[in-house]
């Protein structure tokens, strides 16, 4: 909850010494309240005031990254319950759990290192490896953690072990990677928090239920560690959705600080498809990290895609790249249709062309993400602009007959387009996408 300038002023030394660069404490307070200055500019402010101010200006869900480097997944900082209200901020990271005594540990870590794929212009990857201490042996665990770190040099590491002595040795071995310690329980909180603090690592607070979890995060915070991830002990899909919803609501709607942290969910199941399905529940419903048992390519592709869908900005129309898309295997005689680059328009039109089974080309023109009629009304899908796009694409040279099929909704453009594209034949296609299969088959 933000403080007013006067509330902030009451916390300052009120000496008007000007060291902060402002003429008076009040002027500085006003600027602080607007978020235009940083409290550290005042050298004389009390620790107590700093804490109060820091808490008041902190986002309702704490934000930090796990690991180091450009690819370290960021989490937290979420502001809404539903994606239509505002963009969800930091996409859920995917972590694979590997046991320290698993013979294929190196291979699995390499799989993570090679998990990158490109989907609609975004590079997506498995971000993290959770190394589980199944052996119970400190030397085995440390060696496993080192091996995983070496094989997946950019992955974030999660140290899944509740024995503080074992964790301490492993953290030291990969301290430069700032691993996420998993984790602190009510029993070991002091020891684990001390390790996290000494190595500036984030830590997972593990408790059963939200009441115990709230008490535990307060305890950890009291021990000087603030980058906390929540594990509420949720196992079933029901516990995941209920706990995650209550955590986010408590943080956003009740400003309940003890649960104002990102959430981790374990979604491991025996059956790989079911595991993917439960993972998708956690991704849609507020998890910041999910832990899976395997990262087969088909599975990560599906999870990356769902994550991308959930985390797209609802206010910015999704756009596809302006270009001539080939559907099926078109030849020089195949039809050429044109539409706008609003992603939904593209998906529907391309889907119907696929349904027709007629190999075709679809020219997708940049109309700033507007649908056909809206783009036409806004002057972004005009005869002049279409003519320039078609000419510059050079597509005419590859066709036997220069013919362009216009969406029926903009039939009105056909005359002007014929004037501008002299040697082209302009044909008016169907008004609605679902009539495309009939139309294309009818032309054959």
């Amino acid at each position, binding site marked *: 909850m933000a403080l007013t300038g006067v509330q902030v002023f009451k916390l300052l030394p009120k000496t008007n010494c000007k060291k902060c660069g402002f003429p008076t404490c009040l002027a500085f307070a006003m600027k602080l309240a607007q978020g235009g200055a940083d409290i550290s500019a005042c050298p004389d402010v009390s620790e107590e005031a700093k804490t109060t101010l820091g808490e008041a200006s902190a986002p309702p869900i704490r934000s930090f990254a796990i690991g180091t480097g450009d690819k370290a997944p960021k989490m937290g900082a979420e502001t809404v319950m*539903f*994606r*239509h209200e505002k963009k969800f901020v930091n996409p859920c990271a995917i972590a694979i759990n590997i046991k320290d005594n698993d013979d294929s540990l190196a291979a699995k870590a390499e799989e993570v290192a090679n998990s990158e794929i490109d*989907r609609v212009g975004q590079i997506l990857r498995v971000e993290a490896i959770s190394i589980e201490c199944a052996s119970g042996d400190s030397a085995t665990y440390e060696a496993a953690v080192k091996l995983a770190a070496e094989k997946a040099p950019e992955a974030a590491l999660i140290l899944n072990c509740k024995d503080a002595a074992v964790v301490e040795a492993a953290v030291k071995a990969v301290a430069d990677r700032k691993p996420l310690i998993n984790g602190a329980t009510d029993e070991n909180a002091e020891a684990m928090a001390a390790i996290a603090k000494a190595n500036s690592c984030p830590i997972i607070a593990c408790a059963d239920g*939200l*009441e115990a*979890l*709230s008490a535990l995060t*307060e305890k950890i915070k009291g021990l000087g560690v603030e980058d906390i991830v929540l594990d509420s002990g949720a196992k*079933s*899909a*029901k516990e995941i*959705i*209920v706990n995650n*919803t*209550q955590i986010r*609501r*408590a943080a956003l*709607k*009740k400003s*309940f*600080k*003890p649960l104002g942290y990102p959430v981790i969910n374990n979604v491991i199941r025996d*059956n*790989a*498809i*079911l595991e*993917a*399905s*439960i993972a*998708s*529940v956690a991704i*849609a*419903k507020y998890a910041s990290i999910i832990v899976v048992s395997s990262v*087969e*390519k*088909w*599975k990560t*592709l*599906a*999870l990356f*895609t*769902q994550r*991308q*869908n*959930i985390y797209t900005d*609802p206010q910015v129309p*999704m756009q596809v790249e302006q270009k001539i898309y080939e559907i099926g295997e078109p030849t020089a005689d195949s039809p050429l249709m044109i539409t706008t680059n609003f*992603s*939904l328009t593209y*998906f*529907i039109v391309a*889907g119907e062309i*696929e*349904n027709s*089974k007629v190999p075709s080309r679809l020219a997708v023109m940049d109309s700033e993400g507007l649908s056909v009629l809206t783009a036409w009304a806004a002057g972004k899908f005009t005869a002049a602009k279409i003519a320039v796009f078609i000419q510059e694409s050079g597509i005419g040279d590859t066709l036997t007959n220069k013919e362009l099929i216009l969406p029926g909704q903009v039939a009105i453009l056909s005359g002007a387009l014929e004037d501008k594209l002299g040697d082209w034949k302009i044909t008016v296609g169907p008004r609605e996408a*679902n009539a495309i*299969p*009939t139309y294309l*088959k009818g032309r054959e």
Partner: protein
Amino acid sequence: MSFVVPKESFNGKVASVDFGKDDKALTIGGDSALPFLSFEGELPNKPVVAYEIQDCPPDDWPDTVREVYKDVSGDPVTWAKYCQDEQGAKAIALRLVSTHPDRGDKSAEEASQTIKDVLAAISVPLIILGSNHIEKDSTVLVAAAEAASGNNCVIGKAQEGNYKTIVAAALAHNHKLIAMSELDINLAKQLNILITQMGFDKNKLITDPMCSALGYGLEYTYSVMERIRLAGLAQNDPTMQPPILGDVGMYVWKVKETVASEADVPEWGSLEERGIAWETLTATSLILSGANLLIMRHPSAIENVGKTIDELV
């Protein structure tokens, strides 16, 4: 600071819609809370998944899902019985694909006969879907409603361009009705209003805001469903209270991810599991955003969505 469960309660309630008959009848809806948040309201009925079949062989389905049905899909009656008896389907959705002018242009009478034959062979509830050809559906679905009279079926889809005759037929023969609009909450609302203004009971309506596949506009369907459910519950808008349908299978089993072989796209991994996962994740996402009824194709996807639902309730 001690933790207090942050509950939200709503004045609105999703309508309960039953379909089918006798001991195999099903009920969907009745929700007074957001999906699966049973700690703050009533969620009396689990989402239902219907197996999709069609009145002609599924030549346009990709191999992964066509192969499963290859021995039974030559005949809709055999296919329907297989889904009910071997797969344990709780409901079946028969799509009258071959009535489409491009897909055989079968007559309304032929479709009626198919419906009667299928109804005679199964005891689980039947959902009857047209071929999504606006004009043709307006005659086929009228005949279908009559052929299925007395069976308390779900008939669809009534759209802006053809709802009048279909609504009248569903009304005359006492069926439930799917109203479909295209990915816009206002269009969905408007169509529901038009239909209820014809005297159709709003408690017999199911709304289909149009499905999209994972990666192909799923976020639009997801958010439209979420907004419909919030409008029905939080704003108590009666026109936004019908249960929601996700017609998943037909949107999923044509996208590249369910069709392209591993040889063509090695970085996408196994085609079989990829296709099944695609249908499963699309369906799971939609039950989270409010879908009460799903129409799906692959038995393994249906099974895993069923297990997910069982874990969620």
